[in-house]
């Protein structure tokens, strides 16, 4: 069945069920915002800026956005950058792809991530290239196969959090893109002890379906550059054209590509209504917890695009935040 457009599905579903299109659902808390204007909670509004560095100095960064605009941002004195490790913003190379968390209506750079990538998948094979390890991963029907490099210097840190370094086990790391190849640098989570096909079942829901579900929200770079939206694990396989969908260790309801979700970052109090634009078949197989602010309930409930993750106040190098999700 062809998938036409997320917006069209929202319009049609609202018309058929007679529910309001723009207003949040009854399950949502008061104060939750719409897609265009996320509720910022108590903090200052955050605006993600993405693009390629044209020029950078200790006080100013100029980026070329995907829309072809030139954005000039003042670098805040406290701002730090990350490119495989924490660096000074002025040390970032020209041409690097950056995601900037900007304050003051997008004029002040607060945090910069350069060439960052998230490597989430199932280990297929492991090889060696001099001292480095090369790992082939299966990243789902949409992500396909991906070969990454684990530099010798990062292998100890990664392997201590990924004790089952063998085919069939999950892998999740944060790294940098260098010369078109992803180099893993930080473990994004502790590796689940089970194989990717043996995800534990969610506990039975004695009290029926919850209107809001708490868990972990992570990010992924499987989205288009600059896209806003989430990947959700519990999609019907036939509808989403994703043969690995429909698996989660959290009791999640079935939704569809195009459904709108209200995602709340519990740590920062920011909420945004985001459309489901991809199948989160890998996210559903992780039953980990996020320790960003307290301990989240077990299980990844959504995987956000980098832009949405930053907009909600997440730190890309930490990899997750404690989230609460409801139908938007």
């Amino acid at each position, binding site marked *: 069945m062809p998938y036409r457009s997320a917006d*069209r599905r929202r319009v049609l579903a609202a*018309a*058929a069920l007679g529910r309001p299109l723009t207003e949040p659902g009854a399950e949502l808390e008061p104060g939750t915002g719409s897609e265009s204007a996320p509720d910022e909670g108590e903090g200052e509004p955050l605006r993600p800026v993405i693009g390629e560095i044209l020029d950078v100095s200790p006080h100013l960064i100029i980026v070329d956005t995907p829309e072809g605009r030139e954005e000039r941002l003042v670098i805040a004195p406290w701002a730090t950058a990350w490119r495989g490790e924490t660096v000074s913003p002025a040390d970032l190379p020209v041409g690097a792809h950056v995601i900037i968390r900007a304050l003051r209506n997008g004029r002040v750079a607060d945090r910069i991530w350069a060439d960052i990538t998230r490597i989430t998948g199932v280990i297929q094979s492991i090889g060696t290239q001099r001292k480095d390890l090369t790992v082939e991963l299966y990243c789902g029907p949409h992500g396909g196969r991906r070969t990454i490099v684990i530099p010798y210097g990062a292998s100890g840190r990664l392997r201590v959090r990924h004790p089952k370094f063998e085919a069939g086990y999950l892998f999740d790391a944060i790294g940098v893109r260098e010369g078109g190849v992803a180099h893993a640098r930080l473990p994004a989570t502790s590796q689940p002890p089970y194989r990717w*096909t043996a995800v534990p079942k969610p506990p039975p829901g004695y009290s029926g379906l919850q209107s809001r579900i708490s868990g972990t929200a992570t990010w992924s770079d499987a989205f288009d550059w600059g896209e806003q939206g989430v990947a959700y694990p519990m999609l019907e396989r036939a*509808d989403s054209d994703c043969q690995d969908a429909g698996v989660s260790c959290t009791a999640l309801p079935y*939704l*569809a590509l195009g459904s709108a979700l209200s995602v709340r970052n519990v740590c920062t109090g920011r909420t945004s209504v985001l459309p489901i634009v991809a199948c989160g078949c890998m996210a559903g197989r992780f039953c980990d917890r996020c320790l960003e602010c307290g301990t989240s309930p077990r299980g990844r409930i959504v995987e956000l695009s980098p832009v949405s993750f930053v907009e909600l106040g997440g730190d890309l190098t930490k990899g997750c935040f404690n989230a609460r999700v409801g139908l938007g």
Partner: protein
Amino acid sequence: MLTMIAAAQLPVLGALLAAGALSKVWTARGETEPGALSRLGPAVLVPDRWRAPAMLGCAAGEAALLAGLVLTGHPVFRWGTAAFFAVSTYVLWELRRRRPDVGCGCFGEVSAVPVGLRSLGRTMVLTAMAAGLIWTPPVPGWSLLSGMTWPQALAAAAGLLVLAALSPEIEETVARLRYRAPCEQRPLDPAPALNRLRTSTAWRAHEKLLSSTDPVDSWRELCWRFFVYEGRSRSGDPVDVVFAVYLSGRHPAVRVATVGFDGQPVEVAPLPESMPVSAGR
């Protein structure tokens, strides 16, 4: 008396073997859940790629013993059944020691509860029943079933009751039925929803507006399945006709809306369901 009681356990053993074989085949061949075999014994004792063949092999052994017990009275099948259950007792004991987290897999996916004393006790009782059968007259199972007397039926029922008391699967099945996942969390096939739609009043009322009876888009959200058809309004403008079918219940609700390309609902007067008729004078 003892011989009669022992002989009456043949149908009980046959029923258990049949249920075990069928449920194992169902679990190993079906795609109820990926990775289900990694939590079921004794398949977990073998490497990954041998798990499904091991379970199917076990089911084949049970089916062969069942056929032998029912069709012939040859002692080899009775000895074989006793040996099978004796080995099963040992395997379950070993499984409990080595993998206390996994179920026995005796009845496939239903036996996911970790192996306990009840499961072990059941295989011991089955071993005793099969051993008792060795000393009874060698008659085929079918002739015993066709000529079963009341005392034999009572003895068989007593044997079944003992086994039921030792079966954690019964409680598991009751719990699954009682605490069934809500509709929003169950995978549901779109075909019954489409059939329900085609028999609904909303479909009949809007069928003439549709350009084609094949949906151009379909998706599921919570407990609703949506079907979108291209159509034309009464004024001839292209519209999308969207039907929403509820996925639970005997007579699920069907809702419909006609939406223009600008996203605004188009009011379409439904066809009259009945015409007022005057009785006349």
